[in-house]
């Protein structure tokens, strides 16, 4: 265990992570009581979700168009267990994560036999079926009018009932998720995932149990999303099905792709951009849908590697020495 941890300490990675974590934890001191804190809290939740999806999509190369469903399952399970059955919120969060993990594991086997567009369609269908269940099971979930009265999380007498407290709570979870994912990416499992992404057949020939690994990652991704859902439910104290539909699944996908597939920090960038963007576009009110669509198209066309790679490419280009004029240039 310790060996693994030491093994992971590729010093640069750890340093990068610590700087990032420090910045994030210090932000509230610069934005006291502002509404920006509320937005950054949601950026935290979205980053967690984006990382979960990125593990599946960016590393293992499996498309999912229905991830909002796992988010919603975590939120509703936590919400129902705490609001209707008065179970301890932390226990409920744990139970929700376990249930969603098992569900994803079981359904992962048949679903992940599919590839490409078929997989996309299947996950889309799964997401919609679960969304319809949220909407129709009125007695359990409150139906379209939502579920209210969800309690805040608390540690003893300390209740997480303000934006500031929830910010630290959520970002603690998010930073831990980031750490674990970076660890995973640099481990044997991460390499196996990337091998599957490149060519599943070749990976299997090399001895990687592709089928099991894909399902395990699918399950992990679902659990991360479910925990994010529980955190969301306890922060908002009210949830409704509209937040967990196909639209949000597309938003999540966009965050991951725009941020950069296979890059954990990219997920943060993508989540931050897509959460802050509507706030910045508020001035344009009705036009924001058009701008959003345009942005999707343009960014995919001109920055297919995602912001993270374009940013580093930009930095590299700016830093590298200029080529001499009239040299033997290739066209």
């Amino acid at each position, binding site marked *: 265990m310790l060996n693994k941890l030491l093994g992971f300490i590729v010093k640069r990675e750890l340093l990068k992570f610590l700087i990032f974590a420090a910045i994030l934890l210090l932000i509230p001191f610069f934005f006291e009581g502002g509404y920006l804190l509320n937005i950054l809290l949601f950026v935290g939740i979205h980053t967690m979700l984006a990382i979960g999806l990125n593990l599946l999509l960016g590393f293992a190369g499996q498309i999912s168009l229905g991830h909002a469903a796992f988010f919603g399952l975590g939120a509703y399970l936590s919400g129902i267990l705490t609001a209707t059955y008065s179970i301890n919120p932390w226990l409920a969060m744990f139970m929700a994560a376990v249930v969603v993990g098992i569900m994803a594991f079981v359904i992962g086997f048949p679903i992940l036999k599919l590839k490409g567009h078929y997989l996309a369609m299947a996950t889309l269908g799964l997401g919609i079926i679960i969304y319809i269940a949220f909407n129709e099971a009125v007695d359990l979930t409150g*139906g379209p009018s939502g579920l209210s009265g969800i309690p805040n999380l608390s540690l003893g007498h300390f209740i997480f009932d303000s934006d500031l407290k929830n910010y630290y709570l959520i970002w603690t979870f998010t930073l831990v998720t980031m750490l674990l994912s970076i660890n995973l990416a640099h481990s044997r499992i991460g390499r196996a995932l990337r091998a599957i992404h490149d060519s599943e057949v070749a990976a299997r020939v090399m001895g990687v149990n592709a089928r099991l690994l894909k399902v395990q990652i699918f399950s992990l991704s679902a659990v991360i999303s479910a925990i994010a859902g529980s955190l969301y439910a306890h922060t908002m104290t*009210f949830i409704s099905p509209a*937040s967990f539909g196909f639209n949000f699944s597309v938003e999540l996908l966009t965050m991951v792709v725009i941020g950069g597939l296979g890059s954990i920090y990219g997920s943060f960038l993508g989540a931050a951009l897509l959460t802050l963007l509507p*706030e910045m576009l508020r001035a344009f009110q009705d036009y924001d849908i058009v701008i959003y669509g345009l942005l999707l198209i343009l960014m995919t066309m001109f920055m297919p590697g995602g912001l993270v790679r374009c940013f580093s490419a930009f930095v590299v280009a700016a830093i590298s020495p200029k080529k001499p004029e009239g040299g033997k240039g290739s066209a």
Partner: protein
Amino acid sequence: MQNNFLRTLLIFLLIALSAGTVMAAQPLKIGALFAITGQASFLGEPERNTAQMVVDEINKAGGVKGHMLELVVYDTQGDATKAVQAATRLIKEDKVVAIIGPSTTGDTMAVIPIIEKAQIPLISCAAGIKITEPVKKWVFKTAQNDSLAVARIYEYLKKQKTKRIAILTVSDSFGSSGREQLKAQAAGFGIQIVNDDTYGPKDTDMTPQLTKIRGSQAQALICWGTNPGPAVIARNAKQLGLKLPLYMSHGVSSKKFIVLAGDTSEGIILPSGKVLVADLLPNSDKQKKSLLSFIKDYQNHYRAEGDHFGGHAWDAVMLIKGTIERGAYTPAAIRDQLEKTRHYAGIGGIFSYSPVDHSGLTKDAFVLVEIKKKDWVLVK
């Protein structure tokens, strides 16, 4: 000594004068949360238009007690997450003194914890009864409770001696709230629901559900939804030769429904806010004046029919205006004055709030209308 005193006096006067001018110049910011895009845009757009129109007119007439009003509108897109973000922004960044909206029950329930904590009064334009029952200190509403609409229909059905009905409700928060009320009040009027079906907001063919209803024992059909669903249902019903009397909800109380349903709209009965039939009301009706002025204004401004939903926003803004006229400039004072509002004749009805009633309306807020020859007729 005298110099010092004079200097102090001068400075004090300057400060007092500048504070006075600053006070007079400060506009009062009212926040608005509407579902302008998304599934509930049929609510949010007329509400936003009406609110903006009313605020502009108040400002053109010189404001309220010398204060101009500034409306800060954010789009919730009918999504609880965005509603919460927008509400936080209104409170923390724009520092509004009151908030009108949101348009949907879901969005309202999502923002209630925030506004209760921030202690800013909220006047919701959504119909869900649980918004104001149980009463929350800072939450009011101007939309009539859907329980009142249901009661109106059931009263009429009881008079017609109808015992068994079928209900067909849309699976969004408007429909599910109506369905709750329909189920809850049926027994009290001696009515039994023999068929309970739903349809999706964007569904294009309801013949399966209607076929099932045709085969049931129902004597009447109540459809609870907003355009375009009920229009499709009216057409499908005619196609199937369904002979049951058709009742709708106030969700279709607009000329648009008659346009969409065409000939199949003939004979449909529904509860409606008085705005639909303003010109049919007797002159003694206390609301008639506000109703006609609202309709005329909206027509001039937006070249469209001022409808039932826009009226909720009108009432909300006017109620706040009333509190400012009575001397309230801070959130707490506005809230207190709102609670003291009595007999304000608005678009949705005649509002009287009290510490135990933050919805302010009775069932007289609804009248029953029938569609005859593509126009509205009051049902006695």
